[in-house]
């Protein structure tokens, strides 16, 4: 309990630093997430349509997936130095696999007869994409995004290790100074943000699959 009140008092006393850390944490997560979405949703679609591409690309991203987040950050360090940019690159790499793989699975999972019926009725490729394929793959794409968002928010903590800032700074300092209140100032908001994004995406997913119930 004392530890908790300590954390609360710290936030009250250092409001500026706290909110700045939250802002950096959120913006680095949001950037990484958005870049991953913009890159990987189209890439996943292309992989689903061109089978010969899917082998190498899926293989690459699946192997990326097994590298621990911290290792990615450390690998980036000698290449790009410290600061916001290398942290962003590392987090983007982390966000990519779930989005890419789920987009691919979402598009591959569409019943071929649905596409045949659509094109047989004279829908153009673009219309089929917009009205049939995107909505039908949306649930899986969203669940990939959910995984990615939670992973990015949690891993953004590690960005502090390479000078990326964010809530991880409190955790590192707290650990270093053996100050658990300080540690919680970082850890609790991160946990809350991760849970919030999970719940948020779950809600969107539910809305997108209304027809299945």
């Amino acid at each position: 309990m004392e530890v908790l009140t300590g954390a609360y008092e710290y936030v009250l006393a250092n409001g500026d630093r706290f909110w700045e850390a939250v802002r950096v944490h959120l913006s680095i997560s949001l950037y990484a997430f958005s870049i991953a979405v913009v890159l990987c949703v189209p890439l996943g679609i292309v992989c689903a349509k061109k089978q010969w591409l899917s082998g190498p690309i899926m293989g690459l991203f699946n192997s990326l997936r097994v590298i621990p987040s911290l290792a990615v950050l450390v690998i980036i360090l000698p290449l790009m130095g410290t600061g916001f940019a290398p942290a962003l690159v590392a987090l983007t790499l982390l966000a990519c696999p779930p989005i890419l793989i789920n987009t691919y699975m979402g598009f591959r999972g569409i019943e071929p007869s649905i596409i045949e019926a659509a094109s047989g009725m004279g829908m153009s490729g673009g219309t089929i994409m917009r009205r049939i394929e995107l909505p039908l793959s949306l649930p899986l794409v969203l669940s990939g995004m959910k995984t990615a968002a939670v992973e990015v928010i949690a891993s953004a903590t590690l960005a502090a290790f390479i000078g990326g800032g964010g809530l991880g700074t409190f955790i590192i300092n707290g650990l270093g100074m053996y100050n658990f209140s300080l540690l919680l100032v970082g850890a609790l908001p991160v946990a809350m943000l991760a849970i919030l994004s999970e719940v948020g995406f779950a809600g969107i997913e539910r809305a997108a699959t209304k027809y299945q119930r």
Partner: protein
Amino acid sequence: MADAAIVFDRVTKTFPKTAKPSVNETSLTVESGSFVTILGASGCGKTTLLKMVNRIIEPTSGTISLFGKDIRQQPLTELRRSIGYVIQQIGLFPHMTIEQNIATVPQILGWERSRIEARVKELMELVHLPDSYRQRYSRQLSGGQQQRVGIARAMAGDPAVLLMDEPFGAIDAITRGKLQDDFKEIQRQLGKTVLFVTHDVDEALKLGDRMIVMNEGVIQQYDKPLHIMDKPSNSFVSELVQSDDLFQRLHLIRVSESMVPLETEAPEHYPRLSADSSLKDALQLILKRDVPYVVVEWADGQAAGQITLDQFKLGSGR
């Protein structure tokens, strides 16, 4: 009636990496307003033949024309919007309501909202689906009901031609019979030209005004179902359509197909039956009422022709 709706002119399709053509040098004319069934075993080229009409499959050589116009002359999407397409897997869009599914083509064609709504209502009635189903999703319907939606959806843009690829193949026997009857009735009402692929002999005989028997990419025979049963052109056809149960066959043939013109005004007391009755019905009437012939009449009561015992002799002449 006699206009050509679909004409195949020496059409061949050879799929890559296969030695034998799937459809070989096939020429054929489908008359406007006729219901043509294509019968054959799997792999005989019947589906290939069908799918070349809306260019899901492109022929290797030869031309196909629709109402006198080469199908390659208009944009692909436009061609397909003018042809109804129904497949065995149905392919309803699971994320859209029944109403939205049926409205697909009218929406692409840019119809006004009120017109689309009226059209959906009309079609749901036509295929015997209750109006309350409009807001449902396909998942909530049985297979038979789903295919009713599939048929309604295919007809939404009022196409003159319907292509159907084993549409009732995955539906249980009882429901299938009802669907066949209902669809045949719809086709007759609206005068659509239908090309209908099936591997079910009874279905091909029952539905088709004309019937194509295919084997190994070649049309073995193209004729009225009755003639095909009477005079199979070769042993393949006769083995396929032969049946020991003549009555069952008679049950499949409609009197409108085998009737002959009325010779004289029929006496009042002669039994009449509607044009979509089967030959079996006609035979029963003749035997029961002990008359030399029965009068076939159209739905409006106009006499269409007569059936005498001679028409049955054809059927047993093998």
